[in-house]
């Protein structure tokens, strides 16, 4: 039982490049989330999904897209990376919404030059 896994762990991009972060969970959770963590800012919600095939915007969605084609996977895409997207990205999952425990992945450290 791996819980929540994230791929890759580290990535360096040049401005304008694109990439996709992969999140996978093996707990059969309905809800999945993408957060970014920046110093002094805590965790900010980028996008989330309430089930397979559904996605919704969070607090800071601009510059990101997501897809949830399979229940266990939640992809975060950056179409044209910018230095402001340098951050640590965390994926999480839960059974239900904000009233439930969220289980977090180990994070992806992204640097955009």
């Amino acid at each position, binding site marked *: 039982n791996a819980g929540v896994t994230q791929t890759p762990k580290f990535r360096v991009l040049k401005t304008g490049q694109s990439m996709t972060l992969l999140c996978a969970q093996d707990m059969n959770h309905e809800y999945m989330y993408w957060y970014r963590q920046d110093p002094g800012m805590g965790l900010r919600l980028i996008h989330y999904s309430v089930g397979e095939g559904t996605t919704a915007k969070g607090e800071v969605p601009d510059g990101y897209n997501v897809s949830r084609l399979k229940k266990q996977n939640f992809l975060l895409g950056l179409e044209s990376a910018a230095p402001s997207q340098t951050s640590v990205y965390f994926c*999480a999952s839960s059974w239900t*919404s*904000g*009233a439930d425990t*969220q289980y*977090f992945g180990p994070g992806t450290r992204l640097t955009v030059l």
Partner: protein
Amino acid sequence: AQSVTQPDIHITVSEGASLELRCNYSYGATPYLFWYVQSPGQGLQLLLKYFSGDTLVQGIKGFEAEFKRSQSSFNLRKPSVHWSDAAEYFCAVGAPGYALNFGKGTSLLVTP
């Protein structure tokens, strides 16, 4: 909408001393409250949570938190801190149908 404030950005305690991390929330109804811990280079791990019932909640690693509705607080406590407790601590507030709102975190340093 609910929100949470962690007034202390950094806290330093001596090993063996007691610890209290503050968390204040804003929400009109009974909130769902969480404390998470993040060790360096790791993801977040749940320490404890409060939904209803007994206002004193026990968590993992010897932590506890007390819900005080009159003060809109959910402070985290530990009677004796160990060096391994050095980490970032996040308080979060949620409600059914809403996303969790996290505080900005409190960084705990433990000195010998």
